[in-house]
């Protein structure tokens, strides 16, 4: 009989303990954040959208259209149209990234010999039409 009452007592206290935990958090403030008003600052390595690094002063990029990134992309979402200017130097005529296919894996950034690519901290990528998903990286 005692074992039974102990069991019942333990059962009831277990319920009360659970309630104690929830009431404790009832009085501690919220942990969540009002998203549109306050935005989360991403760490510096966050992998957002792939972009060409544009040098501030000269406004030029370092891409030499070697197609290393196009080859290494697992989803073939990068496309470069190679052009050669007057002194036989290759440069990208068109450099498009298809966001719909991109996996944000960062393999292209690693494979670029001249470190011309980087991934910015942009994460609000919703668009209205599928056409807007293909972005041109050139300025």
């Amino acid at each position: 009989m005692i074992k039974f009452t102990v069991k019942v007592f333990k059962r009831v206290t277990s319920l009360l303990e659970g309630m104690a935990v929830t009431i404790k958090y009832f009085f501690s403030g919220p942990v969540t954040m009002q998203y549109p008003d306050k935005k989360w600052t991403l760490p510096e390595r966050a992998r957002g959208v792939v972009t060409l690094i544009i040098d501030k002063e000269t406004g030029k990029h370092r891409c030499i259209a070697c197609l290393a990134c196009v080859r290494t992309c697992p989803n073939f979402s990068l496309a470069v149209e190679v052009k050669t200017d007057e002194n036989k130097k290759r440069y990208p005529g068109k450099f498009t990234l298809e966001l719909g296919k991109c996996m944000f894996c960062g393999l292209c950034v690693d494979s670029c010999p001249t470190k011309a690519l980087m991934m910015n901290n942009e994460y609000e990528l919703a668009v209205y039409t599928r056409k807007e998903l293909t972005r041109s990286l050139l300025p």
Partner: protein
Amino acid sequence: MTLLFELIKQLIIAAVLLGFIAVNAMFLIWLERRLCARFQVRIGPNRVGFQGCLQPIADMIKLLQKENIVPKDSDQLIHLLAPIVVFTAAFMAYLSLPFGPKLIALDMDMGILYIFAVTTLSVIGILMAGWGSNNKYSLLGGMRSVAQIISYEIPLVLSIFGVIMLSNTLRLPGIVESQKGFFGWYIFQQPLAFVIYIIAATAELNRAPFDIPEAESELTAGYHTEYSGMRFGIFFLAEFTSMFMVSALAVCLFLGGWQGFGILPAPLWFIGKCYAVIFLLIWFRWTFPRLRVDQLMAFGWKILTPLAFLNILVTGLLISVK
């Protein structure tokens, strides 16, 4: 002439009562969502109006302009009537609730019996909803709720007997007056009855650990899966109306009704205590997991009902000894 006058008086009372219920239910919806957010360390609705106070109205407008989708070969009439039956059952019970010494819609001399008789009508509404939606999940939800409410009606009513024996009247204002002073409240003389009442009441409401009829994780949404638009709104309203009604009953029977300590007017004391009990119900809901159907039945029949009988026996002995 007096018949006409009487009719108008009753109409006005009914209108006031309905107004109070609607406002109260709206406030309760907002309160539950905010308290639940506090329990879950998040913020809760605070966009519409100051601290989200217009959120229930926004919900109602959204539900009003939503289309009432009725499943293909379901029983249209029953599907339409179900929410109405459930709401009227909850609404009718307010007639004999004593908000203050004179503030009572219809002072019946067997108020409690009337309330219990009326609240069981909501079972029929839920069963109609379950059957009318032509959906296996709703049917399961409906069947479960019938079994649950019937088997928890008995401990609910039995737990009241102790209070009736002490106050030897069925008139709610009478019971309230018979609780003299703070230590006169029946919760101190009938603690077991209070516990049984609260447990059985949560089961009646299909809330907290007993919310198997609309178990989100098993039956998607139980009996109101196929409801959208204002029909779902009425179900929602009915749930909160009966929640307030159940806690009002608990206050009248165990917590000394409108008797307070002077400074505030009587109805405010009454509504304040109701909100305390409602806070308890909300606290249950956001802490406990859900019981399984057969465990729920076993708990109701094998534990609550015998305890209720035991309580009546002990009260009887005490009264005869005194």
